[in-house]
């Protein structure tokens, strides 16, 4: 197969974009790893968080990670098939539940962080 097969069709292209979101997930994990090395160094810690280059990279990573979240949560009813008695729980309901959990987690984390402002 030619290496550019994924450019031939929109669905193939979106599949490859989804798979390559992992580069941004891994890159951000690396950033967090470096941040942990500066935990006992307030100046180094602040410098890392205020670096324009690192901020720019994170702003680029954000839409990619959001794309990962959306595609991942949309696929959960395919992986997680729930039954209530003889009845299958609606896939739509599972997806909605996933988005609700995502929203709650995000709000709780922001709340914890702002409480330490």
């Amino acid at each position, binding site marked *: *197969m*030619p*290496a550019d097969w*994924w450019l031939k069709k929109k669905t193939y292209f979106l599949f*490859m974009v989804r*798979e*390559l979101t*992992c*580069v941004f*997930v*891994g890159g*951000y*994990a*690396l*950033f*967090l*790893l470096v*941040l*942990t*090395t500066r*935990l*006992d160094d*307030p100046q180094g*810690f*602040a410098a890392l*968080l*205020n670096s324009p280059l*690192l*901020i720019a990279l*994170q*702003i680029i*990573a*954000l839409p990619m*990670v*959001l794309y*990962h*979240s959306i595609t*991942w*949560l949309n696929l959960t009813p395919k*992986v997680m098939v729930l039954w209530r008695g003889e009845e299958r729980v609606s896939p739509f309901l599972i997806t909605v539940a996933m988005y609700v*959990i*995502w929203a709650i*987690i*995000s709000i709780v*984390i*922001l709340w*914890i*962080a*702002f409480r*330490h*402002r």
Partner: protein
Amino acid sequence: MAKSNEPIMWSLFSAGGMVTAFFVPVTIVLTSMVVPAGWIEVENFRQLIAYPLTRLFLFVLISLALFHWAHRFRYALVDLGLRNSAGILAITCYATAVVGTIMAGFFLVSPYLFTYD
């Protein structure tokens, strides 16, 4: 069927995908916007991250995000045409995730290992 570590790696990939989907977007918003913009004082944010529970959270997040990256990236590269290097790609990706996990563990617990008072 040949023995394989595929189920283990897939489980880590899957757990990483879920944790990443839920936690990484809000974390990026914090580290790329909220803290650099000064809405949360950098020093307070550092102290929040230095709590034992936050360290544990970061360890799990970093490790699972790396395993998620490793598994997805190795197959993406094969899909992009690096079929002949599939073996070495797999080893390199998973080894990176293992090393990253060990480093994260070390940096996050080291202050507790090397305090003498």
